[in-house]
């Protein structure tokens, strides 16, 4: 199962319309749980557990977030002398390298999973990131 943006939106709608606090969908090795606090009525948060960078959605912000799949150090370019892989406003296609997260001297290239436009770069070059930290916001046209 690979959940696309529309399916995710449907799940969020379902959560809202049915006035549920939690939905969990599990198929193959992917699990998606949407949960919201009963008090905070309109903002469901999304927790995903995929093998690749996760997509987190919040209705009030357009786009999806690319999160770090590793603990490590975030680099926007292949080396200090190179240009950044992407800048705000760039159009990207699935497979495009967005950044590097370095862990134990291994340079792990993080690739885009979807097509869209880089709306925001959320971490400064050279800063440490944790697993699940948001790196980029991508707007889908």
């Amino acid at each position: 199962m690979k959940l696309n943006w529309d399916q995710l939106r449907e799940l969020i709608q379902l959560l809202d319309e049915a006035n549920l606090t939690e939905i969990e969908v599990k198929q193959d090795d992917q699990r998606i749980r949407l949960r919201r606090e009963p008090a905070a009525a309109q903002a469901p948060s999304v927790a995903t557990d995929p093998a690749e960078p996760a997509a987190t959605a919040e209705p009030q912000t357009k786009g999806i977030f690319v999160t770090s799949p590793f603990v490590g150090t975030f680099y926007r370019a292949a080396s200090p002398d190179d240009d950044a892989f992407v800048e705000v406003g760039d159009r990207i296609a699935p497979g495009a390298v967005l950044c590097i997260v370095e862990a134990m001297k291994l340079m792990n290239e993080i690739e885009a999973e979807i097509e869209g436009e880089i709306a925001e770069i959320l971490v400064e070059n050279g800063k440490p990131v944790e697993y699940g930290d948001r790196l980029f916001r991508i707007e889908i046209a």
Partner: protein
Amino acid sequence: MFEKVLIANRGEIALRVLRSCHERGVRTVAVHSEIDTEALHTRLADEAICIGPDDPRRSYLNIPAIIAAAEITGADAIHPGYGFLAENPEFAETCAQCGLKFIGPTPGQIRQWGDKVKSRALARSLGLPVLEGTELATNMDDAVDKATALGFPVVLKASGGGGGRGMHVIQTEEQLRAVFQAARSEARAAFGNEELYFEKLIERPRHVEFQILGDEHGNIHVLGERDCSIQRRHQKIIEEAPSIALSDELRSDMASTIRRAMKETGYVSAGTLEFLMDETGSLTFLEMNPRIQVEHPVTELVMGIDLVAEQIRIAEGLPIELPAPNLAPRGHAIECRINAEDPDTFAPSPGTITEFHMAGGTGVRVDSGVYGGWRVPPHYDPLVAKLIVHGPTRAHAIAKMRRSLAETIIGGIRTNIPLHRRILEHPAFEEGRISTRFLDEFSP
């Protein structure tokens, strides 16, 4: 001295290590999975790094993620706790290669004691009494020959196992033929090593283990013994120190034998040598655990020491610093492991803890990694708290434990507290008539 220690564990042992670090003025880094974002170890550490999703293979067992967390936080050393990566020699080696001090024995020592058949041979060569057993059984016919030569009943064990996992009691040749292949696949799946061997079955053994500490200056201290005979399916649930089954003479003989043996191997850090005691009172070596153990607090209480602080000092290269050269146990300590499980069916009982009130008062210690409102995740072991008491005699300690169990309230999840209460009330326990078969024989 270390400035910052990363604790590569969760739950009560992560807090246990954190406390000794903070008392020593050492800053701490917690690592956690996504579901442990609000866990107590995450909240109490000076810094916390999320290293992966809930599945422990991708978080608490994820060596690159843990090393990267140490690198980005600038930690000097890593304490592995118990379980997870504590006895993984590759992890200890990777730490060294990355310039991080592993707070524990050397990779070579972890390897030396990790394989059960090799560790038995090593113990024998060091002059320790070792339980009668066989070499590895290469195939079914060889297994039958070896078991017959040893004499039924026997225990079929996985060489890569330990800690009570991967063992079968075998009464007859037919039974052996029926389980051998399955035991082999089971061992391969559980330990990545299908090698099996036999040990002689001791019918009603006590489990007696000795705590040791070694430093880089060649000092070895034997810090008395613990009796961990109350077990369920080979997992300890109640431990005490000292063992009432040991005479002062046997205790001091064992201490000198063990001290001499461990000096010869140059053992560094905390470790435990486990023995089985048969009904005649003789002890034979079972296995060596090169790490801090769950039940270490009973030793701390009767000896008046902090074993984790000593591990840290040792890793800093300092000599062991004990309050007196020849420590003897003072009084008696008992520990009950409180698990999130059904007290009758033993099914795990994860869920949200709605109420959490642990016992207090003189001589009561609680080591726990949970709090009221916290949801016990289903992904990890079910230990929610260790209740440990210390009194002047065993009878006092039993009275204190009964009182403490009665005071303890854990709501929202099921725990094995009712089982602990029944054991503590049982006349056979009170009289010290205990063995690893206690729960089978007395069904308290």
